[in-house]
């Protein structure tokens, strides 16, 4: 262990100040469930670390029909909230009880694939992130925040402070497929949201996880769905489009080939589930 200083600021102002004083060599951690394994393994060798557990960014509050989620809200708190069921489901399918008690929603947006299961749901909900630092505060769409594999739009002097989920229309489904039932790395994660006017789809989001450098929107699949009435042909075509446009990789969990095949299958299942669900609700 090479850490020489560990800071635990008690407010955001303190945290921002520490970050601007110590510069980019200060490693920021929140729940530590991504960073600590790397540190324990000697892969990450930080000298100065700042923990965000006590900065007070762990509130979830409804706002304008949507939700404001503090960056250090634990996955357990996300699971317990009742406002946005898809987010509770995403949290339920992420890691295990003890890890959810530690890991944060903000941290999930930095987790390299096949992690980042909550980010996938947030992407389908058009979430925005709030970044704050010594030069002020700004808000960015989540889709612009994640810029590459392990890279984000976060500036060196900034912290992620919150996630905003707008009041969005439509029904949602969330499907995570892994090799085991629980506590499993994802082969593919699919979050869909579909808004309809009568039968006709007016707006659609198909977000994919574990099949690209970060959570991705399958925009071609979305385009197929808009204007359709989710008939089987449209669902098949959207699933095919998603399988084509995803950017899967090989790892110890699955090959790129298998991941692509599972995108086709699980996008279809997610959409079928959504249709079924809506049919039941309609009765």
């Amino acid at each position, binding site marked *: 262990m090479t850490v020489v200083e560990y800071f635990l600021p008690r407010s955001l102002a303190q945290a921002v100040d520490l970050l601007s004083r110590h510069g980019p060599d200060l490693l920021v951690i929140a729940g530590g469930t991504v960073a600590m394994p790397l540190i324990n393994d000697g892969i990450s060798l930080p000298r100065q670390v700042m923990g965000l557990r006590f900065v007070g960014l762990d509130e979830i509050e409804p706002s304008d029909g949507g939700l404001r989620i503090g960056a250090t809200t634990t996955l357990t708190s996300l699971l317990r909230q009742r406002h946005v069921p898809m987010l509770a489901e995403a949290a339920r399918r992420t890691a295990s009880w003890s890890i959810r008690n530690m890991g944060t929603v903000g941290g999930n947006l930095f987790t390299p694939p096949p992690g980042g299961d909550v980010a996938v749901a947030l992407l389908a909900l058009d979430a925005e992130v709030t970044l704050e630092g010594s030069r002020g505060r700004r808000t960015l769409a989540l889709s612009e925040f994640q810029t*590459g*594999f*392990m890279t984000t739009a976060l500036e060196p002097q900034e912290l992620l402070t919150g996630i905003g989920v707008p009041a969005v229309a439509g029904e949602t489904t969330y499907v995570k497929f892994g090799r085991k039932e629980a506590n499993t790395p994802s082969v593919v994660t699919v979050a869909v949201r579909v808004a309809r006017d009568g039968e006709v789809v007016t707006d659609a989001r198909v977000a994919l996880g574990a099949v690209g450098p970060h959570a991705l929107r399958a925009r071609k699949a979305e385009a197929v769905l808009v204007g359709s009435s989710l008939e089987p042909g449209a669902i098949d075509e959207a699933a095919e489009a998603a399988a084509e446009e995803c950017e899967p990789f090989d790892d110890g969990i699955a090959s790129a080939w298998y991941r692509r095949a599972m995108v086709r299958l699980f996008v279809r299942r997610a959409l079928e589930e959504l249709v079924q669900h809506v049919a039941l609700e309609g009765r």
Partner: protein
Amino acid sequence: MKVAGHHVLDAGPREVFDAACDPATLLAVIPGCEAIEQVAPHEYQGSLVLRLPGVGATFRTFVRLVDADPPHAAGMEGRVEGPMGTIAGRADFGLTEVDDEPAHDGRPGAGSDGRSIASRTLLEYRGEAVIQGPLARLDSRFAESLANTLIAQGLQALNSHLIEASSTVAPASGRPSPREAPE
């Protein structure tokens, strides 16, 4: 670790080659690049600050251009050193002019310097590197995916830079440019 890919840039091979040998351009386009200096003709050293999740580190980089055949091809030997280990390798680039429609996305028309800015360049690269130190214990997918991300971001930035340069002043006229250094 191996990387390979290609990218089309909205400038001719000469402009691309020159930009890629200009420290000021490199500083502007390499993701996380905090400083870069030329230490010898075709040799550069610099520092990269990458706030990677869970890691966040400063890396020292050394790059040397070898087997340069301006503006068609070049090899690059380099090393990236940080607390997590060292990545050392070599990459080869090929630049070919592509003839097709004038560039897309709102790029202005003919340049005042008379250069045909409608020309575009296909940049092909292929590289191999050895990872040593703690970093080597990570799945090589991590280093490869990260390298691909950084290359893509760097080339995108380079392209914006080239578009900007061609729409303002011809890049060679303003400041003294180190690429003019004797071979």
